[in-house]
């Protein structure tokens, strides 16, 4: 079949990265749609109508209480079962920044126990500051469907812009499980590609975790923003370097290709 993958970009008041998320998906070849969470709650839209769900960044409901908490609570109340079966059927779910925070709260990530329980938190940055800058990441692609277009071990650069990104696992055993299963696909590194502390690790995440991909490889959550660097010209150092594809393009193309393979 050669249709465009259908992707819902879920919004509510305060999620504010839907513009770049929608455009990135569209320019990567998906049929993207911005869907207010109300439409899912009321049944006007169903999760199962889509091939992928994208939770964008921003400040859902102001990020009051904790980042992502209100959006996650609304989803838990009405939609969690739908999303769980969506994931179990092998469909794709991605969340960046606030979206990652939502996925963690929902228990979609890391989900080491398979019980969809909250196993971690993204706490206030160790600097106690909002941090908006470009950081280095190492990619360990494992089986993650969103990373197909990357080299294993590759060091990439992405923008971050967040206040609450410090990954804290519930227990040591969950952390060990994450590492054993190579779920920590993206880690903060320094300009030489080595794991290092703040400022390289911009928020103080345990094991420098910047992003997690679930066991099956179809759920990715990350603090950085690939959707903001779809074009090379939006990477912060583009005037200094070679002409190549934008970093964001590689993420979204990977997702679109992975979905098309299933058709």
């Amino acid at each position, binding site marked *: 079949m050669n249709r465009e993958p259908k992707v819902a970009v879920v919004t*509510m*008041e*305060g999620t*504010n*990265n839907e*513009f*770049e998320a929608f*455009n*990135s998906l569209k*320019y990567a070849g998906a049929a993207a749609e911005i869907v*207010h969470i*109300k*439409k899912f709650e009321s049944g006007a839209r169903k999760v199962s109508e889509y091939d992928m769900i994208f939770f964008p*960044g*921003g*400040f859902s*409901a*102001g*990020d009051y209480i904790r980042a992502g908490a209100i959006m996650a609570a609304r989803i838990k109340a009405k939609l969690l079962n739908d999303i769980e079966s969506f994931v179990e059927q092998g469909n794709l779910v991605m969340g960046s920044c606030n979206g990652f925070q939502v996925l963690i709260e929902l228990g979609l990530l890391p989900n080491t126990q398979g019980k969809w329980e909250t196993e971690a938190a993204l706490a206030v940055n160790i600097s106690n*500051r*909002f*941090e*908006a*800058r*470009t*950081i*280095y990441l190492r990619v360990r692609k494992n089986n993650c469907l969103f990373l197909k277009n990357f080299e294993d071990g590759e060091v990439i*650069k992405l*923008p971050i*812009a967040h206040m609450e990104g410090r990954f804290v696992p519930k227990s040591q055993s969950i952390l060990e499980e994450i590492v054993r299963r190579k779920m920590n696909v993206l880690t903060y590194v320094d*300009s030489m590609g080595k794991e290092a502390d703040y*400022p*390289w690790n911009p928020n103080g995440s345990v094991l420098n975790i910047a992003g997690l991909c679930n066991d099956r490889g179809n759920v990715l959550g990350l603090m950085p*923003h690939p*959707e*903001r*660097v*779809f*074009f090379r*010209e*939006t990477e*912060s*150092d*583009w*005037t*200094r370097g070679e002409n190549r594809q934008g970093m*964001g393009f590689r993420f979204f193309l990977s997702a679109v290709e992975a979905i098309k393979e299933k058709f």
Partner: protein
Amino acid sequence: MKTDLTGAMRYTELNDEELSEINSRMHLGLSLEEMLRIKTYFTNLNREPTELELQSLAQAWSEHSGYKSSRNYLKKFIFGLAKEKIFYQGDAGLVSFNDKLAVALKIESHNHPSAIEPYGGAATGVGGILRDILSMGAQPVAVSDVLFFGKRSKKGFPSPRFIEEGVVAGIRDYGNRVGIPTVSGGIFYSNDFVPNVLVNVGCVGIVEKDKVLGSSVSKPGIKLIIAGGKTGRDGIHGVNMASSVIEKGKEDATTVQLGNPIVKEPLIHAVLEANDRGLISALKDLGGGGLSSVIGEMLLAGNVGGSIYLDRVPLKEMNMRPWEIWISESQERMLLAVEEKNVEDVMDIMDQWDVTAAIIGESEAGESEAGDHLKIFYKGEAVMDLDLEFLTSTPLYYRSYRQVKKNAETTLPRYPGNLNKILLKMLEDPNIRTKEFAVRQYDHTVRGSTVIGPFSGKVSIEGPTDASIIRPSWDYNEGLAISHGVNPFYSRLDPYRGAKAAVDEAVRNIVSSGSEPLAMSDCINAGNPEKPEVMGEFVQMLQGLRDSASVLEIPYVSGNVSFYNETGKTRIPTVPTILITGKIERLDHSLTPDLKGIGNPIYAIGPPAYEMGGSLYYRMLGIKRSPVPDSDPNVLKDRKNRFLEAAKEKLILSSHDVSEGGMAVALAEMTIGSGIGMELDFSSFSLRADVTVFSETQSRFVVEVAKGSERRFEEIMGSQAMLLGYTSENFRALRGEERIFDLSVEKIRNKWKVGYQ
């Protein structure tokens, strides 16, 4: 109609003293002359004004809403310059961007609210400027903020540090939450801003040309819909506050608002979606004066009358008086004029985005000779019935002015010797060093369209940029450049030259990024206009703005005047902050200041002259009187054209404009983001070495040119270009026998990054 709302007194029978008493009791902020004008009007009508009518007139006739002190002069000097380049003017001004798109821009001050409560003042400043852009039907794409803080504390006022932290947090929390990138701005420190801090906030938006919305309701039967935040007692009389001098300890907590970005964010989406579907006939934002300022203007503009039912306005708190609802300045509200047939669709969109909305009235046919009337009802009772002509006929003043000639003699200090040390000191001066502690808390990449941000260079060692560049639509490979210009130190010594320098810097910044300037918006900050010397400075400043813009042919498409920035004996200098936008035809032509490679020639564009008044160098030496650099817009225009030609041919690899700290600081800043230095020789300049490198002569740039392109570059630039040396490892410079600079680039960077590690 109930007429006794002003108390038991009959307004039309009051004497002067009683009128003044009413004026201050009701916080009207009107002059006696204006109170008398109202008295005459109602005496002729043979009835008494209602409380709401008086409040309404006070709002409409306030300095803030009516520009009564400034309008005559603005008209005389800067309105209508380069008119043919203006696409449309409303709450914000627009210029054409390409065949399909127009750019909206506006800068506004939020000085008074920020002085009282910095966090909320700055946050609602961002909120307010976003609404101005939105009210044109445009999608906001970038926010900018230019801030002026004091250095020392003043008894009875919050410390400068408290104010600064509050302002930065307010901009961060509001801007980041609404999801519009804050990409440009500036922070200035000077004791001229104790305790009168200035917060100037700008916004730029983009709109399809055929979707630009006006604010006039031109036929009867159009429904008026209020959407967004609910209306409360907050912000009542904010306008009157901005129209008077701050009195110590008299801050009024009821005017404090913190803003609610989470109401604004979906409101932007909903309004733009309704506009995109062609459902809105006219649109206006509710700012100073609230409903009272907006509805009259909308109706008058289209020659219709109207009726408003205040009990339909969604309220935050019960038992508000009708006049409070009418003049409330609650945040996050927009007023939409919608044809009956579209009302259902609009209300539906509002509901989809979870935005509160209500129909509060409609336009009506004008009432013949009597003129168009605005009638207001509350619970079935008429509380206002005024002739629109009268309501909106703000008295305009030609306030008298006196121009104080500040003759300044040239004074050349003793030659200081060690220029290395001076440069290092300059780099860590609060006015020069990095503003990353603030700017890195602002999300500048949201919307994924930031091509050049506030900083550029290698990741983690970035240096400053001159202008930011946004890709306003992903469908075009064109960039929208945004920057600003202002120099409070020059303006203080010489309002005329200060204003010209502000425009010069704004234009320089845009050009330095490789872009062609399109339009400017001016935000004028001044003291009490009732003082002739303040008006004198105001007029000189306007002459400067005019003389530059008319030669450069760049229009001021919008602007804002903030008077009364004074407390007791201290007042701010008359400072214009210029927000500017430009266009770059191809994104990959964008230029940044960080050096790109070793062995490339470095050129100065434009020679330095002995013009040091207000310069960083002279301020450091404590020299107070000396002529301020004078910008020659003809020279600037010529250099701009040559520069952009060279940029188009890709001869220039990096560029920085020469501003505070002269060539020395500009060149040093180019090394920060790259780790590359330069080997320079200033021997060909005849001025003394310190003047050569620290002079702030206007209209200049320093650039890195591609190796091998020297001839072509010199051909285009003519005599304007002077070879200074070549990029290399360290930052070193000679002047004759003297080695004036010898620094490692790390040392330069560490000084500049002081305060941000």
